[in-house]
C-alpha cells in the first residue's frame, strides 16, 4: 500500500517526542478521521532550531509528520510557513489517494506552532485564512475526550 520511503519514515520516524519549554506548540486534529498531531518548536534567530512531533494516527499520518519535521528543520519561519501539505506528500514519493488527507495534518501542525510562537512573542498573527481558529476548536475536543477516559 505504501511506498518504501513512507514505510521508512513510518518505521524509523525522525524527531519524535516533545521539546521541553518549547517556543511554539501546534496541535491539530484531522476532521476526516479524528487523528491528532502535536508539534513543538525551538526557535532561534527566526529559524527552526529544533522540532519534535507526536502523532496519533495511521501509517501515513506518522510518516508525513516525520517528513515535515525533516523538511522544516533549519528553515526560517517564513520559509517554513511556505511548506505545503502537497510538498510533504511529494517528498515522500506520494501517498495512496485515500491517504492524501493525512498529509494535511503535518504542514498545518507546523504552521500552527509557528503562529503560536508569533502570538507568544506578541507579534501580529499573519492572516492565515482563519484556520488557526479551527485548530483550537479541535484541540478542545481532543482534550475533552481524553479526560473522559
Amino acid at each position, binding site marked *: *500500500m*505504501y511506498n518504501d520511503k513512507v*514505510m521508512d519514515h*513510518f*518505521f524509523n*520516524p525522525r524527531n*519524535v*517526542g*516533545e521539546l521541553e519549554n518549547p517556543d511554539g506548540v501546534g*496541535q491539530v486534529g484531522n476532521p*476526516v*478521521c*479524528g*487523528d*491528532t*498531531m*502535536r508539534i513543538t518548536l525551538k526557535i532561534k534567530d527566526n529559524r527552526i532550531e529544533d522540532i519534535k512531533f*507526536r*502523532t*496519533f*494516527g*495511521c*501509517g501515513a*499520518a*506518522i510518516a508525513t509528520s516525520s517528513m515535515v519535521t525533516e523538511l522544516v528543520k533549519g528553515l526560517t519561519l517564513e520559509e517554513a510557513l511556505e511548506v505545503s501539505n502537497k510538498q510533504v506528500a511529494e517528498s515522500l514519493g506520494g501517498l495512496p489517494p*485515500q491517504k492524501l*488527507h*493525512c498529509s494535511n495534518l503535518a504542514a498545518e501542525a507546523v504552521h500552527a506552532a509557528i503562529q503560536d510562537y508569533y502570538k507568544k512573542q506578541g507579534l501580529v498573527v499573519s492572516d492565515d485564512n482563519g484556520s488557526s481558529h479551527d485548530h483550537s476548536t479541535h484541540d478542545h475536543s*481532543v*482534550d475533552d*475526550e*481524553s479526560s*473522559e*477516559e
Partner: protein
Amino acid sequence: MSSQPNAQRQVYLDHSATTPVRPEVLAAMLPYFAGKFGNASSIHRWGYEAREAINDAREKVASLIGASPSEILFTSGGTEADNLAIRGVAHARRSRGNHLITSQIEHHAVLHTFEVLQKEGFEVTFLPCDKYGLIDPDDVRKAIRKDTILVSIMHGQNEVGTVEPIKEIGEIAREHGALFHSDAVQSAGKIPIDVKELNVDLLTLSSHKIYGPKGVGALYVTKGVRLTPQVTGGAHERRMRAGTENVPGIVGFGEACRLAKAELPEESARLTKLRDKLIEGLLNEIPDVVLNGHPVLRLPHNVNVSVKYLEGESILLNLDRMGVAASSGSACTSGSLEPSHVLLAMGLSHETTHGSLRFSLGMSNTEEDINYVLEILPPIVEKLRAMSPLGPGSVL
C-alpha cells in the same frame, strides 16, 4: 504489503476475513474443473455427474445446520445469500406488511440491503446493542408489530465475536408471524447450529470462512417459504436463484461443511483455549487494553481488543512486518474513513475504536503462534505510544 525483514514466523490471524482452501477441499474440487465439467441442467452423462455432485454437496451443507437438502439454495456467497433472504422476503411479502427489523451491528451485506429497502419505502427498525454487542430479545419484542414481515439478526458478530440470542429472537418473530433470518457466516462450523432448534426460517452461510473456496455460499430457506428471486433466468435452485451452478465451488463448499461438522467439537474447544490465552495475555501484558465483545457469549475464534491511545493501522503495519496478520475497526483502515459501525453502536469512543484490533484464529494456529504475538506486540505498542500525543500521562 511490506517486506518482512523481522518476521520469525508467519502467523495468520485473520480467519474472519477469509481462510485458505484446505487440501481435502481442493482435492474434492479438482475433478470438476476439466474432467467432470458438465452443466447440471443437461440431460446427458456429463450433466448427471454434475447434478449428483451438487446433490451430494447440498446434503453435506444441510447436515451442518440440521436442515434437509431441499432447504438449501446455493449462491455466489454470503453477500448474495443475505441479499436474497432480505430482498426476497421483503418483496414477496409486501402485501402482508411494510415493517422490517434488523440491528445496527449487522454485516454491511445486511445493513446496506435494509438501507436500500428503506429507500424503496419499507419502514426499517435498526435495533441497538449493549456494550458487549448483545441484542436484547426484549427490544425485538417491543419493536415487532402486526405489519412486521421480517426480522434479521446475525448469529455470530464478525468483528467482536458476540453470539446473539437468536433462538429467543426467532421465537418472538414466530409468535408474531414474521419470518426470521440470521447471518451465520461467522458462526457456522465454529459453534453448533440447528436451524429447527434455533427457530430460524432463513440462514446465510459462506464457504470461504470455513476453508472452502471464495464465491460460494448458501441460503437455508425453511420449507414452504417463497422468495422473490433477485437473480432471474433459468429454473435453477428451485426457481429462486437462476444461473448455471458453480459446480467445483459447490463441491468444495460441501466438503468444507462435512469436515467442519466432523471436527467441530474438538476444534471449537481447541480454539476457545487459544482465544482465551490470547485475550488474557493481551489484557495482562499491555497496559490500557480493553476487550471488545462479550467475555463468554463469544465465537471460539474471535479476539477483539482496543489498545488505547493508538491507531489500528499503525499497529497492523508493525505486526505485518513481524509476520502477523490481523485487522482493525479503525477509521483509518476502513476505506470509507468511518470507524467501525459495530464498535460505535457498542458505545466505544471514537478514540477507542481507533485502537481496535481483531485477531481471528483458525486451523493453522498453535499455542506457539499465540506466544509469538504476546511476545512481539507489547514492544510495538510501547514504541507507538511513545509517539502518540494521547495517553494517561498525556500533556494535553
